[in-house]
């Protein structure tokens, strides 16, 4: 017989006792959770939740509770499968088909009316899909979390299951001891609270209560002749025909249902919305707010695109290259001492065309993802435009993310092919970044074999030369590229661009800075390096370590400018700083012809622009404001910066033509709840609308939903205000806003004032204590660090407080070095500083 869980188990899980009941269906009794008795209004529909092995309906407790909300509630029915949880122990071996039929009999008995959305985890995902296929009239959607519907017999089972299904292990691991239950609970990240773990254990305290766990594992159809194999095959095939909305919520650290199962499901349900929870595990339903995600998804099936489609005529990013296929003029110059290269438009166009055809001939299809781990230069340019020509989606992650960040980023994008230099291929091989590897340069045969590299770019080009026939251009609104954020607030996020949006990115650069065939350029900032050929501009890259902008010397810049007679220079603040530092006057003649230089990638001080301007006296100095999700939003010139002076934040200028900026005002809790508005002076989250804004975040449905919640706008996560003249001032990141008892404060303006103190090189303003009652702390990096106490000496503290007068500063702390982001080494990692200050000021010992 089924039973109801003990009261303390229900209480530990926050489960209303009225939701728990037993149901008799034919000879069998089931236990289930059903929030119908407590619903205040007519439900929108029903969520049918099916747990896996060895959990029970307890897994869905938060969804059962969340569904019972006041407005637009959902009835949530979470069943305990037979032999599992608190449902009946019959002693029978259930097969997949039988379990699906049993579930159908139960829902018939419950009289579930449509619309029904199935929700499944682990092997419950498979069973829920079986039910879904059998009830097309009721079915309105499917939600799947870390599960699988198909297992290729040629592939080994996941390691964990291989062990559990091994002869002799099965009974011991699953039934006679609680090992399988404990191993599953141990997969929670972070660890489960004791009371919750006990809740999961409650129905499986004794060996006879655990028989079903062994039976479940024994029903995994790992071989062709397994009795459940036909049903598995039926479901795996049937899922391809499901056209209801689908949501895949996935924990990325699952030793059982790894990335390949997500890939398989996405391939079968190409229309599914996907959110990968980076760092969450097999028990993703425990690790993350899955209940909130499901309800949000139900509330808004359609994710609005970031910006309205543009009316501008579409011209593919690669169009210029094709038009100049017969041009023997210089497209690129790569300066690298004796290994310097000059590439003509004709050669670049030919190489691009060959690579595109070679990729196609080797099986890469439009829509396939190709990761490019090649440093900026002619090779990257050619293969990038080749992929765009073919319609393969380029995944561009930069080495600045570090190996761990890179691994996360590439795995999240899940490319089928990876093209890289040897160093990248080694990592790609061992960290399993992609199934197929292509080498950017020639490799020795032995190395290629060891790394499992299937071809080199030269091989592909040769293949492409032999191929002929039509190569259709990809659709303008198909995915074109996945770029990555710098990850200064959490793991780097993938950002998807369509071909149309990439083209708009080119157009906004051309329009804003008047760049075209007549403006040769030197670029040491990655996005602009790659845009050169699209703009029709001849470009040169200086002799330097492209992964370390601080290695650019003034003479190397002068050499590059001279090589193409450059009119425009794009650089990052770190590169400019290095140029200023290494200048000795000898480069002045070469740099005299530059008409425009840009410092891009991070906010920059007037003093650095001034110093750089003395090296390029005829150039206008500009600094664009933008982000991975919108390359250029606003722009400000040095002259304008001088004229506006100081204010609360960094002035980034007026929105560039074609871009609209609005603010979503912060409320008293520091949350950006205001509707998009352009009232001067009001501090809020910066919202951007433009044709070149990202299409969406990649495999981050929830994040995309949040960033696009105002139709047509992209939420940037930056906080700032507009002044009376429509200039945008950035005051910090939304995540770094301080909420004190006296109100909401932003860090950048205070940091700038603290930096006016002579001894202070840089400063970070962070809050400690609970939000709403935070105290403000200024952490400074002094000119001379003396390994003294962490609390600033009275004189320095007094000077900083005087500079920030009007704000109560609880403490001034001194550190040797403020941590900065990897990519630009100029944005201070305030989150890290805040976590450190929180501990130090609580009297603990902590290292920054």
């Amino acid at each position, binding site marked *: 017989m089924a039973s109801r869980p003990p009261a303390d188990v229900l209480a530990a899980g926050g489960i209303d006792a009225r939701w728990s009941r037993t149901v008799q269906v034919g000879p069998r009794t089931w236990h289930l959770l059903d929030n119908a008795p407590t619903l205040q209004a007519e439900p929108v529909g029903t969520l049918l939740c099916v747990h896996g092995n060895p959990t029970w309906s307890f897994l869905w407790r938060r969804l059962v509770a969340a569904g019972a909300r006041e407005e637009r509630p959902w009835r949530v029915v979470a069943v305990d499968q037979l032999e599992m949880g608190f449902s009946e122990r019959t002693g029978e071996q259930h097969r997949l088909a039988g379990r699906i039929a049993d579930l159908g009999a139960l829902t018939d008995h419950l009289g579930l009316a449509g619309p029904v959305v199935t929700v499944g985890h682990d092997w419950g995902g498979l069973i829920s899909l079986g039910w879904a296929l059998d009830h097309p009239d009721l079915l309105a959607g499917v939600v799947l979390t870390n599960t699988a519907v198909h297992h290729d017999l040629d592939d080994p089972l996941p390691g964990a299951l291989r062990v559990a299904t091994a002869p002799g292990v099965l009974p011991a691991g699953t039934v006679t001891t609680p090992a399988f239950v404990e191993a599953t609970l141990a997969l929670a990240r972070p660890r489960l609270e004791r009371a919750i773990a006990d809740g999961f254990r409650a129905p499986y305290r004794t060996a006879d209560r655990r028989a079903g766990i062994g039976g479940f594992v024994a029903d995994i159809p790992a071989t062709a002749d397994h009795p459940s194999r036909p049903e598995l095959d039926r479901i795996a095939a049937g899922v391809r025909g499901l056209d209801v909305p689908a949501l895949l919520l996935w924990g990325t650290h699952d030793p059982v249902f790894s990335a390949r199962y997500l890939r398989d499901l996405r391939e079968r349900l190409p229309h599914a919305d996907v959110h990968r929870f980076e760092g969450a595990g097999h028990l993703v339903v425990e690790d993350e707010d899955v209940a909130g995600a499901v309800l949000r998804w139900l509330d808004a099936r359609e994710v609005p695109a970031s910006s309205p489609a543009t009316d501008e005529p579409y011209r593919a990013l690669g169009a210029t290259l094709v038009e100049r296929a017969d041009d023997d003029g210089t497209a690129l110059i790569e300066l690298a001492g004796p290994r310097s290269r000059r590439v003509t438009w004709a050669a670049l166009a030919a190489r691009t065309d060959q690579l595109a055809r070679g990729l196609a001939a080797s099986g890469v299809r439009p829509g396939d993802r190709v990761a490019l781990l090649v440093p900026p230069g002619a090779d990257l340019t050619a293969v990038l435009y080749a992929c765009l020509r073919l319609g393969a989606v380029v995944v561009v992650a930069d080495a600045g993310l570090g190996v761990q960040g890179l691994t996360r980023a590439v795995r999240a994008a899940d490319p089928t092919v990876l093209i890289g230099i040897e160093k990248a291929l080694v990592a790609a091989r061992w960290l399993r970044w992609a199934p197929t590897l292509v080498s950017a340069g020639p490799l020795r045969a032995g190395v290629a074999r060891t790394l499992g590299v299937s071809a080199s770019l030269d091989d592909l080009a040769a293949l492409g030369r032999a191929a002929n026939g039509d190569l259709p251009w990809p659709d303008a609104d198909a995915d074109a590229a996945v770029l990555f954020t710098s990850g200064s607030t959490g793991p780097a996020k993938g950002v998807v661009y369509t071909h149309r949006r990439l083209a708009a990115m080119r157009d906004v650069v051309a329009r804003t800075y008047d760049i075209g065939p007549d403006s040769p350029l030197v670029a040491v900032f990655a996005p602009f390096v790659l845009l050169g050929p699209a703009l029709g501009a001849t470009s040169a890259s200086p002799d330097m370590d492209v992964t370390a902008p601080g290695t650019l010397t003034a003479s190397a810049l002068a050499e590059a400018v001279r090589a193409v007679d450059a009119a425009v220079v794009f650089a990052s603040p770190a590169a400019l700083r290095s140029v200023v530092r290494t200048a000795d006057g000898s480069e002045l003649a070469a740099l005299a012809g530059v008409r425009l230089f840009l410092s891009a990638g991070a906010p920059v001080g007037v003093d650095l622009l001034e110093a750089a301007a003395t090296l390029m006296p005829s150039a206008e100095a500009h600094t664009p404001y933008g982000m991975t999700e919108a390359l250029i939003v606003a722009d400000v010139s040095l002259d304008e910066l001088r004229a506006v002076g100081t204010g609360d934040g960094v002035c980034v200028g007026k929105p560039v033509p074609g871009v609209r900026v609005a603010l979503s005002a912060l409320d008293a809790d520091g949350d950006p709840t205001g509707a998009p508005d352009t009232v001067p002076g009001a501090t809020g989250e910066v919202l951007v609308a433009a044709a070149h804004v990202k299409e969406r975040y990649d495999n981050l449905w929830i994040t995309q939903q949040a960033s696009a919640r105002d139709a047509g706008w992209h939420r940037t996560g930056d906080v700032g205000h507009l002044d009376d003249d429509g200039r945008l001032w950035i005051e910090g990141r939304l995540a770094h806003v301080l909420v004190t008892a006296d109100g909401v404060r932003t860090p950048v303006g205070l940091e700038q004032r603290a930096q006016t103190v002579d001894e202070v090189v840089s400063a970070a303003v962070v809050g400690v204590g609970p939000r709403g009652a935070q105290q403000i702390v200024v952490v400074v990096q002094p000119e001379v660090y003396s390994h003294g106490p962490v*609390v600033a000496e009275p004189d320095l503290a007094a000077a900083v407080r005087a500079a920030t007068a009007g704000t109560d500063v609880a*403490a001034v702390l001194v550190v040797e070095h403020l941590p900065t982001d990897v990519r630009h080494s100029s944005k201070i990692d305030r989150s890290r500083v805040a976590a450190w200050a929180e501990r130090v000021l609580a009297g603990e010992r902590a290292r920054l």
Partner: protein
Amino acid sequence: MLGRAVADRLVADGHEVRTLQRSPSHVAGAQDVAGSVTDPDVVRAAVRDREAVVHLAAQVTITGPFEQFEAVNVGGTRLLLEHAREAGVGRFVHVSSPSVAHHGRSLVGAGAGPADPHHARDSYARTKAAGELLALAAHDPDGLRVIVVRPHLVWGPGDAQLIGRIVERARAGRLPVLGDGAALIDTTYVDNAVDALVAALHADPRAYGEPYVVTNGEPRPVVELLAGICAASGVPMPRRHVPAALARGAGSLLDAAWRTFPMPGEPPLTRFVAEQLSTAHWFDQRRTREALGWTPRVGLDEGLSRLAGWTARQASAAAP
């Protein structure tokens, strides 16, 4: 110090004030009752025909027999509450301490947690916690209304409790900084505490029946506070840094030594004091300020400069 200041203020505000102290208070304009809060007759006489009682009497030493703390902080409170109710007193402001809810860990933007006589850290805090629970239990919205105010580390010119101890130790070169002295500590300048108690006396009746922590709302690293107080008092600043864990251990040892072999005076460092000086203690003041309709008038810097002025006047008065 706080009791006298409150009495002075209430007299100045035109109230008819009676003080109960062990020895006559000599507050100008107030009527003196001398005696102990543990003496029923004294207490009865003190609260007779009063509209309100502000209860500041407490055993505040750092060491001493538990029974002594209990008699004053619990027994005295019980007597006052009983007789106040009998006398028809309408308002009872019970002055408590944030230490009644402190378990030894850092308090970072904390609220007024429930008083906990079992886990509070020393005899003073435990008995004050019990007294506070008695006071809140006696709250009657239609009769004797009780409000609990917990000022944190009250200081000001002439204060012997905090300033006196710091100055004395600094002068003797025995004022160590525990750890790196970064723990944030919030304090209360005496005038602000007086304002808060008077505000509590006049607070909206709906604010009664609850405890409120009162501070300046300006936490500072402990080393900065000590340096500020020393500078304002004309004594050398603390320079010696002692590892916090070591200090807590030494405090425990000295606690035990003083319990086993009663010695005159206070131990140089108790575990309680070591904890107080090496962990953060600051509070979320929003609820207090809203409920009492009060904000601190004297900022930390202004308080320190008043302390410095007082020190200078003392020095010139003492000069021949």
